[in-house]
């Protein structure tokens, strides 16, 4: 509980202070613009998926990325395909995704170009959804496939098909075995926190980017705890383990 309150305070502090620390380039996120640009040149659509889960942080992160991608696509006149469905909790995410894409068209001043049929619902079953996405990939041959969000085992079907149809693939894996295979299959991969931090990273607002600092602070704490804990444990005391268990 203490940890939660502390992290809350630190994030709030950094959001308010808005200091711009150095932020390392994340290749996968930088590549989004390039991928959309290339699709525009080739006159091909872009596929952007948001996963098959309900509102967990993977899906929410995907929605922030979708916001960015759809805005970019509309600006460059690229058709954007957002397949939805696939899971028991995914239905509630669909209206939000619709809203995001619709808003992108609205903000660019051409709401009449919005095509609701480009957000197909492919049932609530994981592999029916996958079959559908693979089919769309093969038929529409997009120039880029940005697969983020709560994807599970089906991630490889989507990523490898996207590679085979010649799309630039930007992916993120929700668990480590998925990350390992996606790292081999796709052009760019968002590992670990790169996906949840995408919203802050892509935002132009320095205050948002400053929040990335907090993540490093907590990773620093965890490294310190592991090293200190191991040191003390080696000396024979289990103080840190008890501290963490309390």
């Amino acid at each position, binding site marked *: 509980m203490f940890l939660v309150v502390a992290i809350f305070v630190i994030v709030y502090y950094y959001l308010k202070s808005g200091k711009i620390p150095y932020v390392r380039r994340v290749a996968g996120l930088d590549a989004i613009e390039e991928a959309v640009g290339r699709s525009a040149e080739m006159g091909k659509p872009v596929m952007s998926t948001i996963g098959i889960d309900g509102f967990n942080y993977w899906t929410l992160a995907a929605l922030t990325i979708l916001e960015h991608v759809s805005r970019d696509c509309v600006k460059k006149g690229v058709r954007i395909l957002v397949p939805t469905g696939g899971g028991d909790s995914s239905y509630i995410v669909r209206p939000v995704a619709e809203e995001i894409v619709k808003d992108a068209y609205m903000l660019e001043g051409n709401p009449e170009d919005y095509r609701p049929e480009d957000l197909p619902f492919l049932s609530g079953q994981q592999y029916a959804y996958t079959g559908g996405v693979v089919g769309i990939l093969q038929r529409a041959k997009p120039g880029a496939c940005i697969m983020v969000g709560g994807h599970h085992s089906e991630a490889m079907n989507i990523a490898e098909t996207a590679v085979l149809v010649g799309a630039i693939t930007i992916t993120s894996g929700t668990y480590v075995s998925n990350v*390992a295979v996606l790292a081999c299959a796709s052009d760019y991969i968002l590992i670990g926190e790169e996906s949840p931090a995408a919203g802050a990273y892509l935002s132009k607002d320095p205050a948002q980017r400053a929040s990335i600092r907090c993540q490093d602070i907590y990773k620093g704490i965890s490294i310190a*705890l592991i090293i200190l804990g191991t040191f003390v444990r*080696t000396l024979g005391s289990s103080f840190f383990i008890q501290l963490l268990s309390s």
Partner: protein
Amino acid sequence: MTDPVELSIMVVGCFLSMCMFSTLYGKSSPLYSLAEESYIGFATGLTIVMNLMYIYNTGVVGIQGGDWILIFGFILGIATLLRINPKYSYFSRLPIAITLGAQLGLSLRTQIYTGFIDQIKASIVPLFEGSAKTLIYNWTTFICVIFMLSFFLYTIEIKGPIKLSAKIGEYLMYASFGAIFAQTFMGRLGLFVGSIQNFTVPPWKKPILIACMAIVLVALIALDKLNLLEKLTPEE
């Protein structure tokens, strides 16, 4: 003799499965579309049935059992449905916000234990105790975790010792990816073997499997040679 129902299940299932495999041919085909649309259609039907049952079993039965508060589920649910008419789409925001808050809370509340505290706790191991094997295991894991984590620092400029440690972290990460890749392959191979085994056990199914394989392969190549693959697949 085999039960005709079971036979029909086998024939239809096997044929559609082989159609699904046709995606590996690398070109869109009507065979794949057939399998895909069948699957999406029936799966959507299944989803509807399952959700109606959930609403009935949890919601209606719950309210009948005196759990009046569950009626809010119905109210919020109906409010989201108002989106169909753009004039009232305003109403759907509240249920979305409530669901988002609850699901986010649910996904985060345990994460801090399982993903953070437990992992740190498990990483704290004695480095000079136990058998030689334990020592090797403990040292390797300890070093790997520290170096890999240092690769994930974003707001500190990478230079000096951190650069070195991040580089080692990256190398260690790729080494572990190799091992994990192989493990994943084992799993996927298991699933593929399982899905084929579905069509080979019991043995009377074997000829049907071979026939379906042959039919789909021949059809695919013939359609490709006649340039019909593209013409028969739906537009996207």
